């Protein structure tokens, strides 16, 4: 298997990271060598093996679903690159 430039462009779109030609070629090279190394995994037969999603073998604890008015509006907005009163500001999305 080999990851071509078209695939790199597709992944870059999915991950919302802009990639120019030069960067795409570098990434394709890197990813191909990494995946060549990863492919080793396919030597193993994993039929009838349960996938392991968490090593923490406990059931999740429940808590009551309560509304807590912590009044942290200011804290939430504090680190935003651009805000206007109580709102995050983004480039215009509707004409």
């Amino acid at each position: 298997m080999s990851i071509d430039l078209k695939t790199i462009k597709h992944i870059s779109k999915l991950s919302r990271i802009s990639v120019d030609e030069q960067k795409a070629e570098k990434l394709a090279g890197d990813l191909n060598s990494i995946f060549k190394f990863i492919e080793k995994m396919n030597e193993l037969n994993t039929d009838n093996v349960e996938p392991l999603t968490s090593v923490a073998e406990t059931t999740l604890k429940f808590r009551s679903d309560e509304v807590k008015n912590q009044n942290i509006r200011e804290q939430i907005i504090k680190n935003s690159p651009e805000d206007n009163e109580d709102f995050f500001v983004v480039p215009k999305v509707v004409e």
Partner: protein
Amino acid sequence: MSDITSQTLTSLVKNIKEKKLSSEEVTKAFVDRSEKSKELNSYITEDFSNAIDKSKKFDEKPNLDLKLPGIPIAVKDLFCTKDIRTTAGSKILENFVPTYESTVTQNIWNEGAILLGKLNCDEFAMGSSNETSFYGNVQNPIDKGLVPGGSSGGSAAAVSGQLTPITIGTDTGGSIRQPASFTGTVGLKPTYGSCSRYGIVAFASSLDQAGPMSQNVEDCALLQEVISTYDNKDSTSIDFKRGQYSKELTKDIKGKKIGIPKEYRVEGMPKEIEELWKKGIEYAKDCGAEIIDISLPNTSYALPTYYIVAPAEASSNLARYDGVKYGFRAKGENLIDMYEKTRSEGFGSEVQRRIMIGTYVLSSGYYDAYYLKAQKVRKLIKNDFDEVYKKVDAILTPSTPSSAFKIGEKKNDPVSMYLNDIFTVPVNLAGLPAISIPAGLDSAGYPLGLQIIGKAFQEQEILNLAYAMEDKINFKNKITDWWIK
């Protein structure tokens, strides 16, 4: 006392409790040495004047019943610290000032410790040499031009170089143990669920754990006792009975069964590492432990599995950096363009590479072949450990397949960089605790570490084994202070 910074944490605590030293004296000594150690580039953010103010306040009304009374501590810049910039080594968080505190750091402050500053690390903890940090390389105090390891490279350098008496790092695939091994220090990765992940900048949530990095095992046990608490703010925090690790520490390990896994004898491993491992086995025997040959047959599949699971989780964890809610924002022609440019300019190349790998293995058509397959292999790796733990109490291996390498040596070859974590990654995949202790020097005089892997929740057991072996090894770190003019 002129040699404050060369004292262990345990000795500093004792001296403060016995009023032989004040918090201000201790804090000033570490601030002073940190000021003289800029060339190591251990710190991303210093908080020195606040630290001295806090130490004076502590001395006015000292609470000497606390476990870390007035002790200054610098921490990895992956822990959110309230009102103190937290960057995770990334440009994208260059101006991020958390409005809340991580549970682990809060636990430390609750016991009387004082923040010295935030320590350099690989960007989002992705790296094994500290070279992926946006804030530059960290120099290994052992020798100029040598990497300190990663991702907790600044933390390891700061402990080894005596800029902080102790520190905390995080370990997703070896990020505490590998740098500890490279700098002649002790590093513990606790059982998954032992230390809360609340307020730690997330990398791979099913693998991330915080843990202590120290000069010796006793200090390590004391800090582990402080940071390990059940926390309902982390849904994977586990409510188990935690030990009084430092109080229960013992060198009596007679009759303990230690497994030696044959699969860790990897091809191309330097002879010095092989020799070190053999010596380690002899030390363990000298302490009265019983050595048993074991097999962990799926070991060689751990790294490939890790490089699917960790990037997959990272790609979804890092989706939050979109230039809207916090962090760096690039200008864009429209919303999508803004997202794409923000992430392209805000993340470094290793982080982008891992997001790409993660996105690919989770994408439609590849999920089963890669992500699901990796989760199944992960199960087999965990089964290997479950099986051997029916016969042994712990496992002894080298910590890394080599000693510290030169800055720049592996930077352009991701796979050779990844191979550094070959002995540490299986532990994270299985969620087990493991400790790296310095065990010798190679021909260049660079430290080498041994790793002791324990059963889940048996931190006390591996701390005891490490404590007993440390005594036999009698390791002395060769720090020449080359960076101090």
